[in-house]
C-alpha cells in the first residue's frame, strides 16, 4: 500500500499512504482485495447482529405467526419487565464476583507457578484440567458435591461442626447463585492463572534483580515491580473473563434451570427460554440486544482503564 504521491512537486517517498483517492482517480484494486474478507465477515458476523437488532423491533412470534414492526415496544416492555431486571442483576453479580475471585486466585496460582520447583511442568499441565473439562461434566460434578442430602460438602462441613444440619445449596434462593459461582471459580481460575503466568514471564529478570539489589523484599517486589508491570495484561485477562462470565449459561442450565424462585436466572438462560421455548423471536432479540449493550459497556469500562494503565507505563 506504500505509494509515491507527488504533491506540489515534492516527492514524499517512502511515506505510506492509505488514501484510496490518489491523483484524482479511485484505485479499485485494494477495495477489490478487501471484498472477500468484507463479504465473509459481513455475512457471518455483521448480518446476524443487524438482523437481530432489526428483529428486536418486531413482535415476531413463530407460533402465532405475528410479525409486525412495533418500534420501541419491546424495549419499553423490557424496561418494566421485573424478570429482565432480576436476571440482569444476577448476571452482573455473577460476573463481578466470579471475575474478581478468579483474578485474585489466578494471580496467586500464577505467582506460585512462575517460581521454579521440582515437578513444576507437571503441576502447570495438571492445573489446566478443570478448565479443559466440559462444563456440563463440571456442572454434574458440582451438583453431586453440593447435593443437599448426600453431598460431600455438607458431610465435610458437618464433620467439622461448622453447620448443624444439611444445607440445601441449590434449593434455597440464598445459596444457589453463590454455589454456582464457586463452581465457576473452580473451573476458570486456572485459565486466569495461565494467562497471568504468561504475563509474569514477560517481566524482565533484570528489573527483579535490580529490585533485589536495592533491598526490596518479596512483598515490595510484588507491589512495586511485578503488579504494575502486569497491570495491562491483568486487566485484559479480567476483561476477557468478565465478558465470558457475563454469558454464563451451561452451569445454570444444568444445575438449577434458573430456580429456585428465579434466584439464579441469568440473561442467557432467560433469553434462551424466551427465544427457544416460547419462540418469541422479537422480544428475545430485544433481550439479547440488551445483553450485547451491557457487554459493550463492560468492555468500554475495561478499555478505558486498560488504556490509562498502558499510558502510565509509557507504552
Amino acid at each position: 500500500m506504500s505509494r509515491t504521491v507527488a504533491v506540489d512537486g515534492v516527492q514524499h517517498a517512502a511515506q505510506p499512504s492509505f488514501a484510496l483517492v490518489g491523483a484524482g482517480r479511485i484505485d479499485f484494486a485494494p477495495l477489490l482485495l478487501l471484498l472477500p474478507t468484507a463479504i465473509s465477515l459481513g455475512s457471518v458476523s455483521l448480518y446476524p447482529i443487524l438482523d437481530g437488532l432489526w428483529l428486536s423491533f418486531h413482535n415476531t412470534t413463530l407460533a402465532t405467526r405475528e410479525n409486525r414492526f412495533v418500534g420501541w415496544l419491546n424495549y419499553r416492555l423490557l424496561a418494566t419487565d421485573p424478570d429482565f431486571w432480576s436476571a440482569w442483576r444476577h448476571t452482573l453479580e455473577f460476573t463481578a464476583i466470579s471475575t474478581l475471585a478468579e483474578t485474585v486466585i489466578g494471580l496467586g496460582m500464577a505467582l506460585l507457578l512462575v517460581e521454579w520447583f521440582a515437578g513444576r511442568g507437571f503441576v502447570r499441565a495438571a492445573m489446566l484440567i478443570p478448565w479443559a473439562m466440559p462444563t456440563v461434566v463440571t456442572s454434574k460434578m458440582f451438583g453431586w458435591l453440593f447435593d443437599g442430602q448426600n453431598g460431600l460438602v455438607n458431610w465435610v462441613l458437618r464433620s467439622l461442626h461448622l453447620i448443624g444440619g444439611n444445607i440445601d445449596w441449590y434449593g434455597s434462593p440464598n445459596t444457589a447463585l453463590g454455589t454456582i459461582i464457586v463452581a465457576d471459580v473452580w473451573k476458570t481460575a486456572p485459565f486466569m492463572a495461565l494467562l497471568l503466568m504468561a504475563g509474569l514471564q514477560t517481566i524482565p529478570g533484570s528489573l527483579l534483580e535490580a529490585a533485589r539489589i536495592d533491598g526490596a523484599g518479596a512483598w515490595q517486589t510484588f507491589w512495586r515491580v511485578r503488579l504494575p508491570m502486569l497491570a495491562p495484561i491483568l486487566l485484559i485477562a479480567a476483561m476477557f473473563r468478565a465478558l465470558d462470565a457475563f454469558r454464563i449459561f451451561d452451569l445454570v442450565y444444568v444445575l438449577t434451570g434458573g430456580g429456585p424462585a428465579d434466584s439464579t436466572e441469568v440473561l442467557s438462560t432467560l433469553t434462551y427460554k424466551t427465544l427457544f421455548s416460547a419462540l418469541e423471536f422479537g422480544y428475545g432479540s430485544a433481550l439479547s440486544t440488551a445483553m450485547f449493550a451491557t457487554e459493550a459497556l463492560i468492555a468500554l469500562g475495561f478499555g478505558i482503564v486498560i488504556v490509562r494503565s498502558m499510558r502510565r507505563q509509557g507504552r
Partner: protein
Amino acid sequence: MSKIDSSNRAGSRLPAGSCPGRRAFLGGALGTAAAFGATRRARGASRTEITFASAKFFGKETVAQVVEAYNASQGRVHVTYVELPPPSESTEVHQLLVQQLARQTGSPDVFTQDVIWIAEFAGAGWALPLDQELGADVRKQYFPGVVQACTWGGKLTALPWFIDSGMLYYRTDLLGGAAVPETWDELVSIAQSVEKSGRARFGFLWQGKQAEVLVCDLVEFIASNGGAILAPDGKTVLIDDEKSVQAVQFMRDTITRYKISPQDVLSWDEEPSRRPFTGGQAAFLRNWSYVYTIAQDPKASSVVGKVGVAPLPHFPGGRSAACLGGYQYGVNASTKNRDAAIDFVSWMSSPATQLHFATELGLAPTRPDVFDEPRLAESQPFMQKLKPVFLGATPRPVTPKYAQVTLVLQSSVSRALADGNVKQALAGAKDRISAIVAT
C-alpha cells in the same frame, strides 16, 4: 420412491379400501407377527407418498418398524419416517416441528407432538381438525383427559397416541397395615408416622425444581382440590382462586409445616427425587410410570417387590388428578395427501397398533379398552394396572400460549414455595398470565 418390483405387485393388485394386512393384524398374534415381519412386501407403483415425523421412541422395537408394518399392511399409502430427537430433548423437537409446520409446505404430512403443543399448533392453524374425518364417536374411544388435551376450539385437532401421567408410588412394607392414602391428609399422617418411627428418612417426595415438572406437580395438586389454572374458555385465569392457593400452600406445607418432604425437593426434578425412593429412603413418591421398571430392577433398586402404585391423593371434596403427558398424532393442515394421512393416523391410533406399541415399545394406550386385552396383562402387567390412574389424567392449561404461560408458572410457583408468600406470588402470576392469554 416408486420402484416397481415384481414381487411387490401383490399389494397394488388389492382393491382400494380393503386392507388385508390390517385385518390379519387385528386377527391375532400370528397375523401381527406376519405383518410386522414382512416389511418390504407391498410397495406398489401408484402409492401415495407421505412423510411422518416423530420424536424417537424405542423399546423392543422402534417407531420405524411400526411404520414399516403399516407400509406392508396395505398397498395404497407409503409412509417415509423422519426421526426427530428423543423426547428428552423436547425443546429441539418443538423447534424442528415449528420450523417445518410454519413453512406450510405440507411436509411432514403427519407428525407427533407433546400434549402441551397441541393448542399452539392448532391455534396457528397448522393442525387439521379430525372430528369430521373420523366420525363423531371417535372421542368416546379414548381417555377423557387425553381427548380434552387434543381438543382446541371445540375441534379434535390431534389423535391420541400414548399416555403417561403422574402417579403415587408407595412402599407396601412401610404402610404398616394402613390403607393406601386417598386424601392428602391421610398421606401426611402416614408419612409423618413413618418418619417418626425412623423406618424411612423422608415421607413424601415430589418435584419442585423451577422447570416444566413443577407445573405438572402443580396441576395435580390444584386439580385434586377441584381447582384449575385456566378455565376451559382458555382466557379466565384461576391460579389465584382459593382452591389454587390452598393447593400451593399445601405444597409448601409438606416441607415447612408437616415436614414430610425435605427442602431439597425445591431443586429436584424427576431423577433426583426418584433416587432416594428406589434407594429405600422414602415412603411416598410422585413420579411418572418409568420409575416402576427401575424400582423392580435389583441392580438399581433396594425396594424390589415392595413398591405399589396408586392414583395420587386428593383434597376433601376433590378427586384424584394425574398430570397428563405423552405424545399425540397431528395431521399437517397443509398436507396435499389428506386421505392418506388420515388413513395412516387412524391405523396408528387403532386398538391393535396401540396394543403393539404397548407390548413392544412400552407406550401406554390412550384407549381404555386396550387395557382389558389379555395380551397386555401378559406382557405389561404393571401398565395394565394403571387404567384407574389414567382415568384421572388432567391436561396442563390448554392454550396456544402455553410456552409463555408455563415460564410464568414455573417462576411464580417456585417463588411461592421458596418464600411462602403464596397469595402474593399467585396473584402476580394471574396478572401476567391474563396479559399473555388475552392477546
